[in-house]
């Protein structure tokens, strides 16, 4: 300690203080400040980049999810549309079948009625014809038969009996 105090030099401390002040000031201004700022900026840049990458990843995931949902929805919609179309088709076919059946039925009915009409007409004609023929026959028979009075009367009676049976 004694030697320390003895060797102590104010001149040395003076110069060293001045040099240190200059070093700290100049280095601080021209080296430390830009270096520390640059390092901080770089770190901030890296953090920002990482954060935005994370954000982009999330966004990406969100978009994919959305796309999938959309796709799923579209598929569901398609299915629904297809189903509806099928139903519609079935309905149309069924309706067409029904319509055709009823129309056919109607036609058949009409045809039946026509046939019946025709039959009735034909029967009426036949009756007419039969009656005309019968009358003709009767007239001929009568004419022939009425030559003999007895026979005439028997024939008439017989014919009348026949007509009644019809």
């Amino acid at each position: 300690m004694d030697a320390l105090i003895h060797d102590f030099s104010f001149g040395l401390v003076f110069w060293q203080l001045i040099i240190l002040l200059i070093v700290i000031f100049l280095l601080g201004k021209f080296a430390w400040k830009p270096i520390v700022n640059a390092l901080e900026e770089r770190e901030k840049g890296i953090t920002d980049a990482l954060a935005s990458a994370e954000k982009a990843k999330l966004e990406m995931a969100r978009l994919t999810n959305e796309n999938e949902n959309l796709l799923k929805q579209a598929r569901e919609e398609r299915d629904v549309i297809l189903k509806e179309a099928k139903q519609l088709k079935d309905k149309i076919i069924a309706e067409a079948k029904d319509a055709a059946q009823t129309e056919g039925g109607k036609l058949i009915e009409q045809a039946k009625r026509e046939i019946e009409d025709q039959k009735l007409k034909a029967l009426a004609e036949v009756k007419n014809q039969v009656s005309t023929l019968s009358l003709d026959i009767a007239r001929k028979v009568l004419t022939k038969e009425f030559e003999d009075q007895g026979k005439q009367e028997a024939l008439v009676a017989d014919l009348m009996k026949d007509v009644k049976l019809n």
Partner: protein
Amino acid sequence: MRNKIVILRKICHNSTLFKMVSLKKLLLLLAVILFTVNPFRLAAETVPTAGKTSSKEEINAHIQHHLKDDYFFNFATNSKTGQSYGFPLPVILIDNGLHIFSSSEFDHGKKVVEKDGNYYKLYHSKIYKTDAAGTITYDEKHHPTNAKPLDFSITKNVVGLLLAALLLFLAFLSLAKTYKKGPNNIPTGVGRVLEPLVLYVRDEMAVPNIGHRYKEFMPYLLSVFFLIFLLNLLGLTPLGLNVTGNISITLCLALFTFFITNFKANKDYWKHIFWMPGVPVPFKFILAPIEVLGMFTKPFSLMLRLFANITAGHSVVMGLIAIIYLFQHQLTLGGSIGVSMLLTLVLFFLELLVAFLQAFIFTMLSSLFIGMAVEEHAHH
């Protein structure tokens, strides 16, 4: 340009090859050295024994001299012829006017220098005022009682500090330049090593201790860290510099920490010193003087720690080198060189660690003290 690169690659390649065989070669080299120094050993043994008794004192004086500041930048001295290899530094004295002259005028203390009727003599690395004959009077502790002129000389320590400052400027202005192209421009060369160190100071010392206000103190902390580290490393080079092993630089640095701590301190800091919250009133009176003392002991410990560590390191390294001279009779010259080099090598690595460690501790504790002064206390 391409040729240069090719040559560089070859050199690199060779160096890796060299490393592979280096162990074998090193052993061979040691053997060769041992054999070649043998003839010198014979010569050394013929040195008269009268010189041996004085060698211990000589070594001690040499170590003492190395640890002190100097007016002459000395690389080597031939003690037989008294020839010194180095260069003189300017002496600046304020004593009835300004006197500037080269330290070579002292001729290593052998001559008395006369300036404007005043006589100055260099004695044990100090300049004293004397009479024309250069008589020095002593007190009972063998300290000179002669008056000392006001001495503002550019001594070896000043030159050492200037050299370190210059190196720091070169290194860090170039590092700062690399970031001019943008913060993502990665430094090359020395900057690659310096950038992690800057980050280390910031992330391990400044930010954990000071907190969000760390940026204000970064210039000081970084300057101090790199300056101490560089000065410690320069002290391990054969330049013979011993700047951080001198109390004056550690005093200056400690003063900076002291003033920064106390000028930047907030209200809480002063309150904790003079009127400690949360303790009974009588204790407040007891704690105040202790805390006031603590204000001074903190930087004082900074000052002594760095000084003592570096001084001790230099002393021990020089002492181990002195083994060559002290034990050459017991171990033979080759043996003493071998032992000395081995021990010095081990210690040298330790000193490399210490060079970093002391820079780290000084900066760490400085930031801790600053952090304590600017800390926002949660109210008790």
